[in-house]
């Protein structure tokens, strides 16, 4: 037995420990795995090189595919020799609708502006932040600081390159900016007659370079903070810009040189918070939304929320007058187009490549229309984009690489590629085009297989309407199907009638039975019997058809017995007459009334059984019986009242 109990105790203890471990560790592990499994992604970025004395930015970025990021308390301790600012925090959300399903991506950014006085190699970080209650740490970054004035490759150097976007929200064009010097607003543009809302310490302001535009035309939107007292910005939430495509124009928001503006007799320092190029996606009066931020300062307190005013841009489509065929609303800008065809000698059934390049300034069109040439099928193009910003204008180049399949022999003229666009500077349509020249095709033409040609054909790829059926030339027979309306009221009556009828039938039956029961109860009630007996006595009393005194006395006896039973509960028929008075007194009947009862019953008995009973006993017997019944009823009522009061 001893040897048998020990393994059992050990097994129990082991099981308990295992359960505790599983119960505690598993949820923790699952939670960590979930947090790291992709709903939240964290990345840290910084330039590889920077100049001494010049600020650069270290950015911590958190991207979530699962609703808003709840992040707080970003922290970064710069190493000795570097000076760091308080973090500038911003939120960004993007709602995407795909096939009717909406998903939300959100992004949290914390930026520290770091400045190194001396050259050297610095390991910075890692920065950390609390996300949904858990402290997360990013990677440490290494920055090489070179002496001032030695310059950095690429102009202002990587310090000003934006953080890589591939791990976070994808910028629409996902390529680095080459030039972040947008057209600066003149100081007079920063001025205003008076601060909005009488704000004298600080406020946020959004400025657009134009308030009317066409769909697809660039509008430059800048956000500034004006302050006349010392403040720090803790958090920032970018405007929603739901109806716009946005492209950032400023690489390191918040690091530009502040300017001043005299507003309402007060000198404000004006700092650029952010500047974006926005492209309207539709016509209408489109609202940009507001930028919001939380500020702190000795004069204003902490976490003070401030919001810029909304800006409405009047967006229209380019005029339909003189609109060139093939123009797609949104293709706006100044572009050039060139193309290259390789090879120009192919065999029937072979393919050749056409590379079409667009470059210029504006919203680069997403497609070009290839010429429809008999005997050539175009495959879907391979597209590349090189988006840049120069002087605050978005532009760049986009390349389409088409493969054409040749099914016709001989020399084939490829035709021209046209790109109809709206030129916002000249306020007119332009159609840059490029002639593709021709190709020499060796071999005999292939008879096109309808099934095969349907697959890669340009008609299918570029123009779904090319296969529209022919119009109908005659009216076929047609009888309109008129669904008759179901009248609501008759339908409701028809629906309600059967169950209501059933309920009515059952209810009526029940009521009839209840009435019957009540009638029977009334018939059997002592008071009814009293009345019937008194009526019978009265009838016998006045009868001339041979009714005797015995009949009258019998009826009176029945009435009194019933009355006593009804009003006192005493069944007097089984009580001797001499004991009746005591019986009635026992149930609280007044002695005089009891005596009257005994008297009436005695007279009635004499009339029934004593042949010598005189007529005086008969006279008024019925009336005495009736009075007695009333007196007993009164007694009973008084007794009931007394019982109720007690």
């Amino acid at each position, binding site marked *: 037995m001893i040897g048998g109990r020990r393994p059992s105790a050990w097994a129990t203890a082991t099981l308990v420990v295992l359960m505790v471990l599983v119960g505690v560790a598993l949820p923790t592990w699952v939670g960590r795995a979930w947090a790291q499994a992709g709903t939240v992604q964290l990345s840290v970025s910084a330039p590889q090189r920077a100049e001494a004395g010049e600020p650069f930015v270290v950015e911590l970025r958190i991207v979530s595919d699962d609703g808003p990021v709840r992040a707080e308390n970003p922290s970064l301790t710069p190493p000795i020799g570097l000076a760091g600012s308080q973090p500038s925090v911003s939120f960004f959300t993007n709602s995407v609708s795909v096939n009717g399903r909406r998903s939300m991506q959100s992004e949290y950014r914390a930026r520290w502006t770091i400045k190194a006085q001396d050259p050297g190699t610095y390991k910075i970080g890692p920065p950390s932040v609390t996300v949904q209650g858990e402290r997360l740490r990013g990677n440490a970054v290494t920055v090489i600081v070179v002496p001032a004035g030695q310059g950095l490759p690429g102009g202002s150097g990587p310090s000003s390159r934006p953080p890589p976007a591939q791990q976070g929200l994808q910028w629409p064009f996902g390529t680095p900016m080459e030039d972040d010097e947008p057209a600066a607003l003149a100081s007079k543009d920063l001025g205003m007659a008076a601060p909005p809302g009488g704000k004298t310490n600080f406020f946020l302001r959004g400025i657009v370079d134009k308030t009317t535009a066409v769909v697809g035309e660039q509008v430059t939107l800048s956000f500034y903070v004006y302050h006349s007292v010392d403040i720090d910005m803790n958090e920032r939430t970018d405007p929603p810009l739901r109806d716009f*495509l946005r492209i950032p124009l400023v690489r390191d928001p918040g690091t530009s040189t502040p300017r001043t503006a005299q507003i309402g007799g007060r000198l404000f320092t004006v700092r650029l918070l952010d500047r974006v190029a926005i492209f309207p*996606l*539709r016509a209408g009066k489109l609202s940009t939304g507001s930028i919001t931020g939380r500020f702190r300062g000795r004069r204003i307190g902490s976490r003070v929320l401030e919001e810029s005013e909304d800006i409405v841009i009047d967006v229209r489509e380019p005029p*339909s007058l003189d609109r060139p*065929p093939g123009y797609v609303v949104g293709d706006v800008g100044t572009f050039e187009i060139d193309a290259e065809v390789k090879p120009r000698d192919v065999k029937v059934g072979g393919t050749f490549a056409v590379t079409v390049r667009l470059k210029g300034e504006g919203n680069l069109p*997403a497609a070009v229309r290839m010429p429809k040439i008999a005997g050539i099928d175009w495959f879907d193009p391979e597209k590349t984009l090189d988006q840049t910003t120069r002087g605050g204008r978005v532009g760049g180049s986009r390349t389409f690489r088409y493969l054409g399949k040749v099914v016709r022999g001989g020399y084939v003229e490829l035709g021209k590629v046209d790109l109809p666009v709206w030129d916002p500077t000249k306020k007119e349509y332009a159609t840059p085009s490029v002639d593709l020249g021709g190709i020499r095709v060796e071999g005999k033409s292939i008879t096109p297989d309808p099934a095969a040609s349907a697959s890669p054909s340009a008609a299918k790829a570029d123009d779904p309407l090319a296969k*529209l059926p022919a*119009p109908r030339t005659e*009216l076929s027979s047609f009888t309109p199907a008129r669904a008759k309306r*179901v009248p609501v009221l008759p339908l409701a009556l028809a629906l309600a009638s059967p169950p209501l009828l059933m309920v009515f039938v059952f209810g009526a039956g029940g009521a009839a039975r209840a009435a019957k029961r009540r009638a029977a109860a009334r018939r059997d009630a002592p008071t009814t019997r009293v009345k019937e007996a008194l009526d019978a006595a009265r009838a016998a009393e006045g009868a001339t058809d041979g009714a005797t005194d015995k009949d009258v006395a019998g009826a009176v006896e029945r009435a009194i017995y019933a009355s006593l039973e009804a009003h006192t509960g005493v069944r007097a028929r089984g009580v001797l007459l001499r004991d009746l008075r005591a019986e009635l007194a026992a149930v609280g009947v007044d002695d005089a009334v009891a005596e009257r009862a005994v008297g009436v019953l005695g007279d009635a008995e004499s009339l029934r059984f004593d042949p010598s009973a005189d007529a005086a006993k008969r006279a008024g017997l019925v009336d005495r019986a009736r009075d007695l019944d009333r007196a007993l009823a009164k007694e009973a009522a008084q007794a009931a009242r007394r019982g109720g009061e007690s």
Partner: protein
Amino acid sequence: MRGAIPAGWHQRFGLAIGRALSLTLALTFAGSARAADTDEELFARAAAALEAEDVESAITALESLADRGFVHPDASFDRGIAYARRARGPRPQVGDLGRAAAGFEEARLLRPDDASAAAALEQVRGEVSRRRSHRGKDEIAVGDPPDRLLVELATPRAWAALALASSLVLSFGLWLRRRPPGPARVTGVLALPLGALGLALFAPAAWWSGVLVHDRGFGVVVASEVLLTDDGGARVDAPNVPEGARVEVGGSGAEGGGERGGEGRVRVRWGSYEGWAPTASIRKLAR
């Protein structure tokens, strides 16, 4: 007196009167014949214009037909073809693809087994998606409002018949339930809740499907996009309805059957989204 009248006067006077009468009659009948083109003649003219690639004339004739209240799936189909051809022609107008989709959608509504109208509708919607993708916009596919399933499952009369049957089952159950214990009473105990449940389900279904069929119609977006707004004019939380999308028109407690003529807005439902849209941006479909 007779000798004073020039010879041949009678003939010349009669000839003049005859010519005047003839001219008057000719002009009168010609004008009335032109004005009283039958629907069939107008359709034939539209079809001929389409054959001749005269899209504008075809559209004019087909829109005249529609304005007259002439409802025929072939006319709707040809209207769709006409707008689709103009959309891919040299002088397209904004909303042409939406109007083409409206034509095909109307043809399909009037004749549900019209396969070529359904195919053409798919092609037009494909073109809309393609053009949207050129503008960097997602394709948004939204079906009919969920309660439209009622109409797709059965007609209002069928729902009403089911409700009536449920009412009878309920009544039968009520009666059997009062029978003495036995199989009949068990049947009543089962029939009573079944009938009540059926009545609770089918009676509202009959009413609502009737509302959907008779009081609500369909429309198609004939603008590049439509922004849905609430009663106060603020944007509702819904994506913009793309061109060519089919929406349900009318209802929802709005005055005038879902239209606010003074404000130029119409009540629409698009999938589970609901709001007001500019009247001019929605083409109502005949039914």
